[in-house]
């Protein structure tokens, strides 16, 4: 008889497989968004962030934060921006959005996924500007470009939230 290999519980493996599937989806969307024609400087539809929101609902806050980090690191590796200013800006935006979405979902009563996504999109854009202003171009005038971009963020945040709600209602929640 050889040594007995203890297998992790099936539910735990399932959670890991789900997280990995979401990570791959987020990386794919990150690369896809980088290849899209630019809708303006620093502006993307935020589809990769939608996956962070799904991870938050499906697998919890820790999974969402880890997914956000993993997506930016591996996605940037594929599009050739690893450790460039673009990478730093993406990481700051992605992480801030994840933290704000976790807090909103947990603490704001009556909020739906649309409100969570809206706040995430706004936080993402503001964090990008703060990062650029702090690390790269130390000029307050930079913030003058923020209002029109925030208007676009509210639109994409609202639409992505509705999309997340549609998808999340069709996911299986094994632990609840």
């Amino acid at each position, binding site marked *: 008889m050889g040594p007995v290999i203890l297998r992790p519980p099936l539910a735990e493996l399932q959670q890991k497989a789900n997280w990995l599937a979401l990570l791959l989806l987020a990386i794919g969307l990150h690369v896809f968004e980088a290849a899209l024609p*630019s809708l303006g*400087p620093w502006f993307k539809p935020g589809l990769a962030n939608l996956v962070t929101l799904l991870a938050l*609902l499906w697998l919890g806050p820790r999974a969402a934060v880890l997914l956000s980090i993993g997506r930016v690191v591996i996605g940037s590796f594929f599009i*050739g921006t690893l450790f*460039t*200013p*673009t990478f730093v*800006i993406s990481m700051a935006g992605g992480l801030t959005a994840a933290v704000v979405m976790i807090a909103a979902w947990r603490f*704001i*009563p*009556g*909020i*739906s*996924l*649309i*409100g969570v996504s*809206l*706040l995430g999109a*706004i936080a993402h854009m503001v964090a990008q500007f703060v990062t*650029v202003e702090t690390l*790269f*171009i*130390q*000029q307050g*005038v*930079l913030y*003058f*470009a*923020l*209002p*029109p971009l*925030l*208007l676009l963020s*509210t639109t994409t945040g*609202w*639409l992505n*939230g*509705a999309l997340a*709600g*549609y998808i*999340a*209602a*069709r*996911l*299986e*929640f094994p632990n*609840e």
Partner: protein
Amino acid sequence: MAVSVNPRIPRQSMARLLKGSLTDRILLLISLAGIAAAWFAVQAVVASGPAVAEIYHGKTLLATYPLPKAGETPKSFQIDGELGPSEILLNEDGVRITSSPCSAQRCVYSGAHRHAGDMIACVPNRILITIRGSAKRRFDAIVE
């Protein structure tokens, strides 16, 4: 069978979902009011005075140039950024970066800008160009 058992995520049609909850709508209203207030505040600051292009590198204001009007001679010059020199052209179309040492070249592709509040930011080269003041239109009217 994939069925949601999370009471906070009800299964609804897309049309119903797009409406959001009351809390969502209040958040949207607060966001839009904030954005509108910021927009008007920015326009009040940037739209006053004659049209000029301000060129920055990191913390430093390198130069302020008036935007040439139609018929005036274009200006072209280089400024040194973090990675190397960026070529800048000022003409009747506004201001544009014509070449940059950055890899993405987004600053070059963004083209010419001449409206108050417009900006070109090349983050890798740490160059920022902003337009302040009201640029007079090159045409008083366009008639078909």
